[in-house]
């Protein structure tokens, strides 16, 4: 895992894509999260039935999920 992060930092110095060349990166299907409404709905489905959760954010509260 440490190596992965070091690779990231090295990549940061090596990769440079000019702003005018980022058209594809701005596409909605390149977004890391689903749309806000769909993302909120998906939070209800798996975390309430599995022991693992989180990883993408902080500052959220819990729920007494059945």
């Amino acid at each position: 895992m440490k190596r992965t992060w070091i690779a990231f930092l090295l990549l940061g110095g090596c990769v440079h894509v000019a702003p005018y060349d980022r058209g594809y990166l701005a596409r909605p299907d390149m977004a890391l999260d689903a749309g806000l409404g769909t993302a909120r709905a998906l939070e209800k489905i798996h975390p309430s039935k599995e022991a693992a959760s989180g990883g993408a954010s902080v500052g959220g509260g819990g729920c007494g999920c059945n």
Partner: protein
Amino acid sequence: MGAALALPILAFAPRAGAAVVGEMGASILGYKERGLMKATEPILFGHAVIDDVWEVEASAVGDILTGASPQFVTNVSGRPVQVLTGASVHERRHAGDAKVGRRFGDLVISASAAVSNEHDYHSKAGGVEAREDFNDRNTTVTLGYGRANDHVGSAIDPSLDQPRTTDQWLAGVTQVLSPVSLVQSSLAYSDGRGWYNDPYKFTLTFYPGEELPALLPDLRPDHRRSFAWLTRYRRHFAQQQGTLQADYRYFTDDWGVRAHTLEVAWEQQLGERWSLRPALRYYTQAAADFYSPVIPQTAPRLISSDQRLAAFGGLSPSLRASVRLQGLVLEGTIGYVHDAASLRLGGSGSPEFETLRAVYGILSITHPF
């Protein structure tokens, strides 16, 4: 419910001269487990970037839960099985969150707050996040801290009012890899203290030759430290007009849970307006150290027969379709959840795990502005 890490260059397609760019909309989730709970969740949401300086985001959620929930695990029939609540459960939850950020050059500082209330569970949370762009915005580093203060109650024990406090830290890097690909990797550490017992879960065990059974409530540790490593990759294939989306998360905690989650999706553009996104999610977890569907004859200090802490795996296919109309984006998702002991990686799930099957649908309408 936290505000997710964002990659600024991807948030919205830039519109020259626009003072406010964003979206607002509404969604509704319908979720139904076979023989268990049913949930309906309406959601309102909005997100805007103002003058390229301020970023605001908010959502409000209402949950309506009905149906039966597992209450006892008992071996009265010879093998441990779940016994459901007799009367149908009917619960409502109201939740909301907001996040405000301000850009200072390449640095964005933001603060968030979230609240969630149901009759037997109250949660307040807040967080701060710093996000800085480097390398001409090809690299974004995010650091975050959040705290949640929860209060656990119970409809069957009105005297129960126990606190739980969770501190969360997050560090993430988003890296543009090429004009058509990017990757994000984040580490999240959570340190929780307080009440983790589920007041609605019990274990009832009969022993051969013994007249009286043993009954124990859910008894979990009073702390939980967990660590999650999430990596997400996106790559667009211009010739095929499609995008590969792959997410992997490794999760571990000091309860003994180890879990892997992998989701792979392909979003296909169909003409100017339509897109279709088939996806498959796989999940596998090891059982918590104190998970047991029966009470050992020497009563343990900690025990939970809640099968969410058992060893199992799950497959969840889904299909999302979206269409862009004049000033609106309509999006629909349907999905299926199948959790089973045999789906655990390696196939050695907890034998008592009762297979869960559920279907869900999400409808969203969004107005970009």
